[in-house]
C-alpha cells in the first residue's frame, strides 16, 4: 500500500459514503426553503451555511454527491461496456478492415469534445441528467477502446496466447479468458481517471444548464446559483467547489496509487 492510494481511497470513500448516507439521513430536507434564514455563513446549526433560498448547504452537498457519482459511474460503465469489447475485438483482428474501422471511428469521436457532444444531444433531446450521462459516456468509449486495444496487442504476442491458440481456443475465448484478465489492471486505473473526469464534466454541464435539472441537486448547479451572489455570499461558491476538487483529487490520487500498487514495475521505473 502507498500513501497516494490510502489518501485517495479515503477521500473517495468519504464522498461515496456521504452520498450513501444521504439516502437515509440529511441534517435538513435538502429542498426545504427558509427565506428568513437565507445566506447564512457556516454555523452550529447549518454546518456549511445556507443558500439564497435558505436551503441547508450540507444537505444539498450530500444529495448532490449522489448525482455526481451516479452520472460519472454510469458514464464510465457505458465507456467500458462498449469500449472494452471493441478494443478486444480490434486487437484480435489486428490490421484487418474491422480493426481499421473501429480505430478510425474512435478518432472521429475524439474530434467531438464531450461538451460538444452534450450540446448536440441537448439541442436535440433537451437538457437533463440522462442526456449528460449519454454525452459523457459516448466520449468514454474511444478512451477505453484505444487503451484496451493497445494493451491487448502486446498480450497477443505472448507465448501463452500461442499455446491457447494451439489448444484450439477461438479468438473470442482467448480475448475473454486470457487477454482481458491481463489488461484489467490498466482498465481499472483508467476507470478511476475517467470517473474523476466524469465528475468534472457533470459539474460543467450542470453549471451551464445542460445537466441535472431542478429540483435534482447537483454541485454544478449549486455553483451556477452562486455565481451572481459570489460577492455577498462566497461560501455558496466555495463549498461546492471544494466538494468537487476534493472528490476529483481523491479519485486521481487513488488512480495513481492503484497504478503503482498493481504494477510494481512502474514504481521502480519512476523512482
Amino acid at each position, binding site marked *: 500500500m502507498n500513501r497516494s492510494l490510502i489518501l485517495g481511497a479515503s477521500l473517495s470513500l468519504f464522498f461515496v459514503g456521504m452520498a450513501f448516507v444521504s439516502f437515509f439521513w440529511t441534517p435538513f430536507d435538502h429542498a426545504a426553503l427558509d427565506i428568513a434564514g437565507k445566506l447564512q455563513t457556516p454555523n452550529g446549526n447549518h454546518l456549511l451555511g445556507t443558500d439564497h433560498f435558505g436551503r441547508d448547504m450540507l444537505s444539498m452537498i450530500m444529495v448532490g454527491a449522489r448525482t455526481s457519482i451516479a452520472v460519472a459511474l454510469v458514464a464510465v460503465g457505458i465507456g467500458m461496456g462498449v469500449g472494452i469489447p471493441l478494443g478486444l475485438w480490434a486487437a484480435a483482428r489486428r490490421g484487418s478492415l474491422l480493426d481499421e474501422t473501429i480505430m478510425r471511428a474512435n478518432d472521429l469521436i475524439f474530434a467531438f469534445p464531450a461538451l460538444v457532444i452534450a450540446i448536440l444531444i441537448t439541442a436535440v433531446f433537451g437538457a437533463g441528467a440522462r442526456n449528460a450521462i449519454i454525452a459523457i459516456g459516448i466520449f468514454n468509449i474511444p478512451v477505453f477502446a484505444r487503451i484496451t486495444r493497445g494493451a491487448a496487442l502486446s498480450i497477443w504476442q505472448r507465448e501463452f496466447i500461442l499455446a491457447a491458440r494451439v489448444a484450439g481456443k477461438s479468438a473470442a475465448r482467448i480475448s475473454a479468458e486470457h487477454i482481458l484478465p491481463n489488461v484489467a489492471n490498466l482498465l481499472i486505473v483508467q476507470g478511476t481517471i475517467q470517473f474523476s473526469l466524469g465528475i468534472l464534466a457533470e459539474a460543467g454541464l450542470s*453549471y*451551464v*444548464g445542460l445537466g441535472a435539472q431542478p429540483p435534482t441537486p447537483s454541485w454544478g448547479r449549486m455553483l451556477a446559483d452562486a455565481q451572481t451572489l*459570489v460577492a455577498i455570499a462566497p461560501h455558496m461558491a466555495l463549498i*461546492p467547489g471544494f466538494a468537487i476538487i476534493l472528490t476529483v483529487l481523491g479519485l486521481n490520487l487513488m488512480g495513481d496509487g492503484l497504478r503503482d500498487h498493481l504494477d510494481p514495475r512502474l514504481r521502480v521505473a519512476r523512482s
Partner: protein
Amino acid sequence: MLRYVLKRLVSLVVSLAVASVVIFAIIEIAPGDPASFMLGMNAQPETLEALREELGLNQGKLARYLTWVSGLLQGDFGISYTYRTPVGEMIAARLWVSLPLALYALTLSTLIAFPAGIFAASRRGEAGDLGVMGATQLGVAIPNFWFAMMLVLIFAINLRWFSAGGFGGWDAGFFAGMRALTLPAIALALPQAAILARVMRSSLLDVLGEDFIRTARAKGLSARQALWRHGLRNALIPVLTIIGLQFSFLLAGAIIIEQVFYLPGLGRLIFQSISARDLIVVESVVMLLVFSVIVVNFVVDLTYAAVDPRLRTRT
C-alpha cells in the same frame, strides 16, 4: 514524406465528411419544424408553406445535406432562423472573441507548463519536484469555471484590477481587449498548464534515461547542459501532441468560461441558439469546432512527421 502527407490528407477528408454526416443526421432528428417555430402558433398555412420553401425545408434530406455542405465549402453557412442574418457573419463576429481567448490561454499554459515541467524533471525526487507535482494534482482537479469565479471574486470584486465580465470589443484598442480576456484566459489555462507540465516532466525524464544523454554526459557536459542541448528537443514530441489536443479542449472549454464572464463568443452563440431552437446555427458552430479539432490534429501529425522521420512509416 509525400506519401505520408497524401495518406493523412485522405483520412482528413474522410473524417470531415463523416463528421458532417453525423452532425447533419443528429440535427435532422430534432423534433419541431423551424418554420412553424419562427412564425409562431397562429401562422397561416400559406405563409408557413412559403417560408418552408424559402428555407429549403421542402427538399429531400439528401438535397438539403448537399446544399449545406456545398455552402460550407464556399463559406456560406446559411441564414439564421431567428435573426434572418447570415450564420457566417454571426460566427465570424463571435470568433473574434473565442479564438483570441483560446490562443491567449494556450500561450499562458505553455509559459507556465514548460518551466514548471523542466524544473520538476531536473530536480527529480527532490522537494521542488514534489511541490510541482502536488500543484499539478490540484490543478487538474479544479474545475476551470469554479476557478474563474474565484478569480472574479479576488481580482475583479475585491482588488478591482479587472472587470468582472463583458467584452468591449477590439475597437477600444488591443490592450483593452486583452485586459478583458485576461481573467478568462488564466481560468482556461490553469488546468491545461497542470496537464502540460506533467507531460513535459515525464517526457523529459524518459529522454534523460536514453543512451545519448549518457554519451553527452560522458563527453563532459554537465547534467544541465545535457538537458538543455539534447534532452529538451527530444522531449518535445509528446508535448506537441498534448498542445494540439489542448487547443480543441480550450475552444470547447471556452464555451463554459464565456458563460462565467458573459463574453460574446461562440459559446454564448451556441447557447442562445439552442434556447431559440435556431438549429442551423448550432449545426454550423458544432461543425466548425469539430473541423478545427480535426485540422489541428492533422497539422500536429504532419509537424511530428517533419520533426521525426521514424513516425512517417507508422499510421
